[in-house]
């Protein structure tokens, strides 16, 4: 009886110490080519916030980890917004498409990774509805786009998959320098 109790105590202590010392290794994750898909929302800031509502966004990204701390990629994003310009028109929607290249700097701490990212590309607006408030000029559909932001991601037990949360601010100089924040939840697959 005493021997059995002693064995139980030893097992508990061993298990506890084992558990404490066994968390040192980071969760395994794949490194290399990756693809991401995200859903979120885009909110215009300052001047444009009164002319366009918060709208849903979808985002896909393909990239490659060059080092453990640096990756590069390209992304395509589309968001849809209700125009809230002085009527008429009323209740009309427009879409904003962005194609950008970017670089990410970051690191991983066990199952959590954090990145900062920045890049540039091209944006296209689907209609001239914001021309009424002088955000777009006649015939203007395209703008250069700059973005910068940060993301955190959680590595799942399967080393290929992670999901995360990202927020990017972007600037469209040709469209009266409107600024917006794109925040999204994403799923990442690394090959």
């Amino acid at each position: 009886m005493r021997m059995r109790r002693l064995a139980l105590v030893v097992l508990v202590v061993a298990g506890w110490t084992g558990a404490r010392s066994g968390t040192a290794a980071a969760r395994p994750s794949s490194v290399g080519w990756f693809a991401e898909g995200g859903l979120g929302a885009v909110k215009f800031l300052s001047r444009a916030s009164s002319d366009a509502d918060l709208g849903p966004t979808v985002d896909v990204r393909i990239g490659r980890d060059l080092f453990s701390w640096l990756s590069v990629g390209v992304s395509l994003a589309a968001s849809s917004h209700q125009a809230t310009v002085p009527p008429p028109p009323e209740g009309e929607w427009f879409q904003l498409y962005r194609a950008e290249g970017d670089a990410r700097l970051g690191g991983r701490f066990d199952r959590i990774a954090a990145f900062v990212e920045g890049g540039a590309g091209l944006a296209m607006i689907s209609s001239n509805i914001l021309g009424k408030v002088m955000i777009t000029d006649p015939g203007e559909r395209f703008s250069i786009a700059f973005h910068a932001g940060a993301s955190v991601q959680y590595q799942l037990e399967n080393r290929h998959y992670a999901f995360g949360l990202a927020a990017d601010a972007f600037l469209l100089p040709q469209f009266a320098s409107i600024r917006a924040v794109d925040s999204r939840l994403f799923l990442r697959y690394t090959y």
Partner: protein
Amino acid sequence: MRAIALSSVLVGVVACNANDPVYIQAPMAMEAGMPDPANMGMLSEAKASLQLPIKTETAADKAKRDAASARLAPIQVPYVKVGDIAIDVEWTIKNLDNMPGQARVELNGASEFFSYDPSIIHLSPPDAEDPPKTPGLAGDIPIAVPAGGTVSGLFTEDDLLEASIDLDQVTRGNVSPFRAVLTVSKSALSFQPMTAPALNAAGEITQSPMGPPVPREAFAAMVRIDLVFKPDRHMVLNFNVRVRDLRGIMHDMLLAAKPAELQMFDPMPYAPMVGAAPAP
């Protein structure tokens, strides 16, 4: 593989573009509903026209149109046909008075051949008592506007499609405006042109079919939007025209385009005279 992906994206962008609308803001607000001293103190009405900024016809388009005209002769095929563009007109009325009122918004317009203004169309016999007023193409329905309030509305793409076909039926086909407006023709495949209305010996207006039916491929689309604003109090109307350019004939710069790059249309006012019927 890369080429397929790239072309898929390009096809997607082009497809999106074809269906994306452009918005053309009317250059001026329409203000009316004030006593008009030049018209015996009657309330003023406002009229406005907006010509759509359509690119000049290309040589290829012209050749295609000429070939279609030769095939359908003697029917003329227009440059801008029904189905080339989808238009709607969105408007907002603001009542500037401190009493509620009513307003009417009447839609008229012009194709590249004819303009339609019901105020100059008189189809009744000259001696008719209290003849009915020739109708507009759409609208002209009383709209309640609260004191100091704002009301928005629109003529939909369907309304404008119907109005375009009605306009062509009336102006090129001499179809009675009452008949054209009161029948639904937006899916019509053709219409039969008639002779100009004429009075017979019994004093009745008569018409008879003339020439071959005009097929849908030769239906002229509206290229100018005319609005008449008729409020019973001091009000102001702003409108804009939304166009989905299905054929790619709208100028990218819209109203800011150089005049030389825009197709000039010179529609003739449709104003039939009711005369005596030709002798049989």
